[in-house]
């Protein structure tokens, strides 16, 4: 699976990178999130799904 962070919705709450730091990366300047390139590693899928559920802005989607 892959994940996508909608830059129009993300407001930099940072919970996704706290939960799944190997899946999401935060911008140094404003803390907004983006997904790291490529497929989510199989052992990170559960954490990625937890990050999706935890996003206060509902900005993250899973691309199967």
């Amino acid at each position: 699976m892959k994940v996508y962070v909608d830059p129009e919705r993300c407001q930099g709450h940072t919970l996704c990178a706290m939960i799944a730091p190997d899946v999401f990366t935060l911008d140094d300047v404003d803390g907004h999130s983006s997904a790291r390139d490529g497929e989510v590693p199989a052992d990170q899928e559960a954490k990625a799904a937890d990050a999706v559920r935890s996003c206060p802005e509902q900005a993250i989607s899973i691309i199967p």
Partner: protein
Amino acid sequence: MSTQPFPDDDAERKRNRFHFDRHTPEYRERFEEITGEMLGKCPVAWSDTYGGHWVAAGHPEVFELARSAEYVSNDHDPNNERRGYRGISIPSPDIGFRGGFLEMDPPEQRHYRQALNPYLSPAAVNRWRPLVDDVVRASLNEKIESGQIDFVDDLANVVPAVLTLAMLGVPLANWDIYVEPVHASVYTSPNSPDMARIQQSRIAMRDDMFRQLAEIRANPRPGMINALAQAQILGATPADGELLGVISLIIGGGFDTTTALTSHALEWLSQHPAERERLSRERDTLLDPATEEFLRYYTPAPGDGRTISADCEIAGQQFKEGERLWLSWAMSNRDPEVFPNPNEIDLARTGNRHHSFGLGLHRCIGSNVARMVFKRMIVAVLDRMPDFACDPARAEHYDTIGIIQGMKHLPATFTPSRKIGDGLAETIARLQVVVDEERLAEPVTVRKGAAEIL
């Protein structure tokens, strides 16, 4: 969401009614009951209090409203230059100035945040961690040999204040000019005999802010005040009065909220020693979710006011331009549809989409500071005072939770131990040299590395 005009039928539009007064002691005492009633019957309701206003309590309703910036305004316009909106306080205060960018709409609001983001992003905030650890260590040193501490006065008031001033570019030693007026003016009733003294301390704080801004304008030194002094907002340099509102917002947001979160968490951990032991033992995995859970449950800033800026229908409710709205982060954080067993603290809770830092484009700009400082204080207490016991008879909560859900005092006892290193005054003097020499208060765009403290 739709913007079709709808008939002027107030009785029908306001059929969900709830007498909501968050400024009464009763609201604090019956919070869970009132919240349960609103969530169950009327997640958005019209209240007749404070001139009449909407109250949003439900999680999906608050979510949608807070993110509808095109219909919901934060603007405070005391001089009636635009539409006369009254900002984020309900009732609106008599003071005639805006409370920084939290009482502005884009694009002005965005210009301020863009100026300050490089000081407050996770990467920027993490640079301060060694300094925070040193201030925490020194604060605990002051009490560690006595076996007695007031977690509010001796720790949770001190560390956020020192760090916030350091990030602003204000001398660290000035923290005690700021801490009393910010903390006490939140919980002291206007009729209190203590109010005259607190007013004096507020004047002293305001004078110091003016002095710092003037000094930094004349001789720039790193920090958020410098960023504000140099900022171009809507293509111009803002007036000093406007900047003082912004500095006050950063100070108000940076001090008492983190103090409130820390004191409540420590009180709960004292009441639940097995959970405290578990948090300490499993801190590598548990401290992050536990922090979010304390944020959800105690919601230090319980909500924000707004003004409807255009007729609209949001979350199934019709609103009219000019109507006031209270977004309750605290009540939406107890919605059982989103949080199973919402009135229980579950340190390992997942899917914790709490609203404690607000939502949408006004998300608390200091959220990364709050989390970092909170975690460093909690961990240090767990390490150095692992058996602390708060005294329920002397713990003092704010009488009302309309503005901040905080604590005045939280005395505790613990097994005494030895000091580690120097005390608070010496530490602050030493750290001032580090802040100046390493230019720690530069934005992350200029300085990337963490503080180096020998």
